[in-house]
Structure formats: C-alpha cells, structure tokens
C-alpha cells in the first residue's frame, strides 16, 4: 500500500519533470535558433571575414591571412586605437568620479532634491546624435556661441574644429554631459540601500562626517563602483555619435575612434575585411580591459 503510493508520487514527479523539460525546450528552441542566427553566427562570420579581402557586395571573399590585422599597425590605425582607449578611460573615470560626488551630495537633505535628480538624468534621455549635432551651436568656428562671446569681448576667435586638443575636450565634455545620469541614479540607489542602522552604529562608535565617508560609505559602495566601471567601459569604448557628428574624427584623425573607422571602412569604403578586423580587435581589447578591471578592483574585496 505504502509502496504503491510512493510509486505514484514518483511517477507524478517524473511526469512533472518531463513536462517542464519539454516546455523549457519548446520555449528556448526558437529563441536559441534566432539567437544563433543573429548573434553567434555573425560573430563567427565576422571573425572569418577579418582574414579576407571582400567588399561584401559581389564576388567571393579572398583569403589574405593577417593582412588586415597588420593594417591596424600602419597608417593612422594605431592612433585611432589609442584615441578610443584614451576617450574611454578619460570619460569613464571623470564620469564615475563626478557621479559619485553628485550622488553623495544628492543623498543629503537638500532643497529641491527631486528637481536636481531629474536634472542630472534628463540629458541621458536625449538622442546622442541629435545633441551632438546641436552642440556645434557652441563651438562652431564662425557661427558658434563661444566665438560670438569672444568676439563681443574683443578677443580673437579660435577655430576650435582644427585644434585636436579642443575637439577632444569638447567630445569628452559632451560625453560626460550625456552619460553621467545613469551612474548618478545607480550610486543614489546604492546609497539608499545602505541601512540607516549601519550609519547610526558608526555614529555611536564616534565616526564623524569624513571618517564615516572613508570607512563606512565608500567601502559599502565598492560593488556598485565596480559594476559602473565594468559596464561603463563597454559603453564608453563604443563612442561613435559624438565623434562622428562633432569632429568627424578630425583634425586629421586625431579624434577618430574605432567604431567610426569601422563604420567608414565597412559602409563607406566597402572594405569588410579591415572593418571586421577592427571589430575583432575592439572586442579583444574590451574583454582584456574588463578582465583587468575586474581583477584590480576586486583585489582586497575579501578583507573589505
């Protein structure tokens, strides 16, 4: 009697298991098929194309070995890779530091907190392309606002667009303006997640403002900082609209970045091989950066 109940229960368990397995694969098979066609296959294809010379339109790809990768060591390509890394690191570090500071300030009891919070997030909701194009209204050499102000002060105007330093600065400032909102929201959320009791306990132990920040708040924010830096790195490496529409990569490629160069190689010059090689290099650099980042940042995590 007891035995047959057990068998029935086991049978019921098995049929449940079987139903779940069947439904799981019923749902996942089409998703995986789609995903393989529009993600896995293109990634492999991109890798293969990077060893060929091909316009992507007609004829067959011709195998050229490492030619496209060697290309990335010549002409302006090394400069373009350097620019990308420089922009990515500069923007990310400045943005994260600023966001942390602003979140700490917005976490205090201040007037019009909601207004400030909205203000810091709103630029993130704008279109990167539209705002980059509009930003010319400030630094355009002959009809821009900055030169108009200089002129009205009786100062000589500066042709910003031919000056690599200024264009880099404008691109960095624009990218921070548009990108800082997300990290501010994340840090604010993390700060609000720190329980009041922890601060109260530290206060009882005699911690004051600066000490509290140094020994309590910042260490507790550490996981969020790591998260922001790693996900932010992937985003900031893909800087595109700002460069394309503000400086077009100029003057003479000094602000050019990988994504813009890949876009030009692939879709303007129909050189799919070099473009694919660029994409592979970018992916490798990103993975390497992310892993190094993770290793450095998670060091000392155990004690902390």
């Amino acid at each position, binding site marked *: 009697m007891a035995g047959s109940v057990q068998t029935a229960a086991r049978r019921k368990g098995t049929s449940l298991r079987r139903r779940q397995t069947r439904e799981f694969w019923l749902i996942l098979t089409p998703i995986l098929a789609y995903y393989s066609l529009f993600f896995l296959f293109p990634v492999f294809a991109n890798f293969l194309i990077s060893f060929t010379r091909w316009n992507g339109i007609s004829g067959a790809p011709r195998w050229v070995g490492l030619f496209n990768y060697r290309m990335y060591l010549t002409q302006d390509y090394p400069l373009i890779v350097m620019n990308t890394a420089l922009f990515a690191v500069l923007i990310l570090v400045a943005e994260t530091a600023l966001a942390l500071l602003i979140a700490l300030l917005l976490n205090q009891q201040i007037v019009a907190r909601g207004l400030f919070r909205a203000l810091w997030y709103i630029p993130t909701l704008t279109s990167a392309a539209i705002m980059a194009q509009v930003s010319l209204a400030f630094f355009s050499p002959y009809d821009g606002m900055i030169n108009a102000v200089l002129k009205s002060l009786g100062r000589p105007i500066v042709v910003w667009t031919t000056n690599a330093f200024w264009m880099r600065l404008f691109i960095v400032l624009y990218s921070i303006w548009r990108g800082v909102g997300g990290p501010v929201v994340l840090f604010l*959320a993390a700060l609000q997640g720190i329980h009041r009791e922890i601060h109260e306990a530290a206060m009882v132990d005699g911690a004051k403002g600066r000490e509290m920040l140094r020994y309590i708040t910042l260490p507790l924010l550490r996981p969020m900082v790591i998260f922001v830096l790693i996900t932010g790195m992937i985003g900031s490496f893909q800087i595109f609209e700002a460069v394309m529409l503000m400086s077009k990569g100029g003057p003479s490629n000094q602000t050019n970045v990988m994504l813009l160069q890949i876009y030009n190689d692939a879709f303007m010059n129909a050189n799919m091989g070099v473009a694919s090689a660029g994409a592979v290099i970018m992916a490798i650099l990103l993975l390497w950066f992310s892993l190094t980042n993770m290793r450095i940042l998670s060091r000392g995590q155990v004690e902390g």
Partner: protein
Amino acid sequence: MYAVLIVGSLFMAFPLLYGFFGSLCSFEEFYNSPLFPFPRHLYLENYRVLFTPSVSLGLWVANTLVRIGWYILIPGTVAVFAGYAFARLQARGRDAVFLYLLSSMMLPGIVYFIPTYIMLARFPGSGGNNWLGQGGHGFINEWPALLLTGWVNVYYIFLLRQTYYSIPSDFEEAARVDGAGTLRVLWDVYLPMLKPTLTVLVIFQFVSLWNDYQWPLIVSAGNPKITTLALGVQRTLLSGAYIKKLPPSTTDWPFAFALAMVATLPTVLLFLWLQSYFVEGVQGFALKG
C-alpha cells in the same frame, strides 16, 4: 562641496536652457545676443515651420512608433516566455543556456553588425536579389532591415526572470490544481503581476528606439520613406536656412534648437511621468545581479 553641485547642475542644464530659449528667438534676435538668447517677445515661427510639409516630422514619428510597437511586442513576448522558462521550469542545461545568452552582453555590437548587414543585403529573393542572394540590395533600405534584428533582448529576459523569482509559486500551483495549462498560467496568473517590470521594458524600449540612430544609419540611410526620428532630425537640423529660404550663409540655430526640442520632449515627459520605473530599470542588473 555644494559649489560642485551648483556649478555641475548649471553645466547639465545650460545646453537645454540655451536651446529652449534659443528656439523661441528669431534668426536676427538670436545672432544679436551672443551670451544667452533671451526672446523679448514670444516667437513661434521655428516651431510652426516644423509642422509644414518641408519637414517630414510626422513620417519620422510614425516610422519610429511602428518600430517602438514592434520592439515592445516581440522582445516583450520573448522575455515573458524565456523569463518563465529560466525561473520556473527545471531542465538539464538550463544554466548553461542562460550563460550562453548572457555572454553577448560582454561584446560590443559591432562584432556582429557587419555580417548581419551582409546577411540582410544578400537575403535570397529579397529586394531584387536572385535565389543566391545576388544582384539586388536585399533588405537594405527596406522595412525588414529595421525590424528583423534584436528580437531576443537578454537584459529583459534577466529582468523578467528576477520578477518571476520574486513571485511565490503558490499562485501557479493553485491555478494548476484547477487544471490550468502553462499558457493560461502565464496569461491569468503571472501577466498581471509582471506589470511593473513590463512597464520598465516598455519605457526603456520607447526611449532607446526613439533615439536609435546607429542601426537605422547603417541599414536605412538611403530610403527617405523609412527614415526614423533621430536620423531624420539629425540630417535636417542644419538645413533651417534652406527650409525657411533665408540666405544660406549662416546656420539657422533657432530652427535647429526647435527641432531638437520637439525630438527630445516625449522622452523627457515620459521620464517625469514615470520616474520610479526609470530608476527601477537602470538599477536592474546592478542590484539584482
């Protein structure tokens, strides 16, 4: 410290305020006030021009809304089902499948853009192509190029999975005792409880497709009939002088500002209306991961 907040906030607000007030200025008024454009009387001509046939704003918005609807429906449905499968269905290999899907988030989109573009351009039998995919332009500059990619969004699958986890399974078990199948359970039991997460999905898809620029630029730049908002606006921004038949020597910035304001307003209003959902969506991975 508060100086940083004040100066920083000015830096954040200045471009938008400058643009807003600039858009209310006439061309002459704008160029006569170098530091800050302050209109002495209300001037709406820049906005009026936007709604004349010389700017295809209506078409761009319509095309963008088609994409928004599509990209809420398809990735939303995929995420509701896949999230359920990952959270509630026991199957061997489940975690490996999930990791496989997650792995895409470590790579920049450009590593699959180029072959995807070629695949669309060489799609057999489409857009003048023969059965080998040669001879025509395929789906490039056609609607399918703007609708075929991005059906599986791993971030939303993740968000939905976490939401299913947070719902006690008692509700599902009760429905199953009453004889409900999986589809009925999803529809009657879970869908009402998924509403907050689906709201996050809807607003993030709205904002990201409203502003989507890169992919439309790559696959649809040659067909004005399917131009979407960000691309159309970016390309028209600097042609105010042409549209208003002014002498072509100087950029008509007030026109550009008005156009940019109109293009930005919907996402900002959406944010002001549903702020807490935006915060929820931004946090998603960070706090639940």
